[in-house]
């Protein structure tokens, strides 16, 4: 599979919820999540991010996050990994939904990124 999606959120429920939502639009896409800290409290975990990327079977990853430390941990992971990761500074729910819908029908990256542009908020 060309693209997979990784969701990084401060909250386990947000991460799982976004996955539930976008899976409806993209049932065959590899979507993995890293929500909350190692103890499932509010926060972010590099270990969970690592696991979400390991479990994802996409050749390249489209990554979405919510707040500050999710972004920082995601960027820290990106400095450590050999995987191709595209990180988007967009509204989490709308961005991930848009990307999932387009990746599901094998749209090229350029199309996906053009559709994400109006959703950039950070």
């Amino acid at each position, binding site marked *: 599979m060309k693209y997979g999606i990784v969701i990084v959120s401060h909250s386990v429920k947000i991460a799982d919820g976004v996955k539930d939502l976008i899976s409806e639009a993209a049932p065959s896409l590899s979507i993995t999540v890293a929500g909350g800290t*190692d103890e499932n409290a509010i*926060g972010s975990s590099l270990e969970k991010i690592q696991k979400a990327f390991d479990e994802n079977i996409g050749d390249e990853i489209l990554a979405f996050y919510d707040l*500050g*430390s999710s972004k920082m941990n995601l960027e*820290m992971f990106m400095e450590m990994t050999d995987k191709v990761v595209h990180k988007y500074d967009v509204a989490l729910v709308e961005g991930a939904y848009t990307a999932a819908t387009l990746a599901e029908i094998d749209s090229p990256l350029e199309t996906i990124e053009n559709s994400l542009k109006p959703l950039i908020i950070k």
Partner: protein
Amino acid sequence: MKIELNDAEKWINLFVDKLEKNKAELNELDTAIGDGDHGTNMDRGAKAVKDAFAKKTPVDLSELFKTTAFAMIQKVGGASGPLYGTAFLDMSKAAKDNDDLSALVQIGADGIKRRGQSDVKMKTMIDVWQPIADDLKQGPLTDQQVTDALESTKDMVATKGRASYLEEKSAGHLDPGSQSSAYLFESLIEVIGG
């Protein structure tokens, strides 16, 4: 000046002691302008650093900073995890062939700027790290320099981090990340002298 492994070890140990001792104080500062968990987060990081040192005593400066970095990255949970983590990780990489203290602190400060996409005057821990890095280049560090750097954050309006959501209401409070960074450099002075 050069920093030796045993001094650096004392430095980090004193720092994590201070984090544990001042958990409530850091939480209180963070309650005013953030989400109230900086003390709890750093306390978790401090315990992880102690556990990691107990498991394996670092054999050189690079390993000492790396162990500190990974404990912080894995256990802190909030934004300070990747920020302190990046600082110590970058210092660890540099310490392989550089044991100059002021150079290492500057490298740590640069790491925090990169990770947080931040700079001075944004009311973040950079407002302690950068002036202290500058002071260290000039000579021995003093408690007054650390206090001055920390106090400078009080009147700033935050433009990065959680406090920036409060806009001008963030002024009038010390930045919690700057307070924990002040503990780091106060610990350093206790080890190497002012």
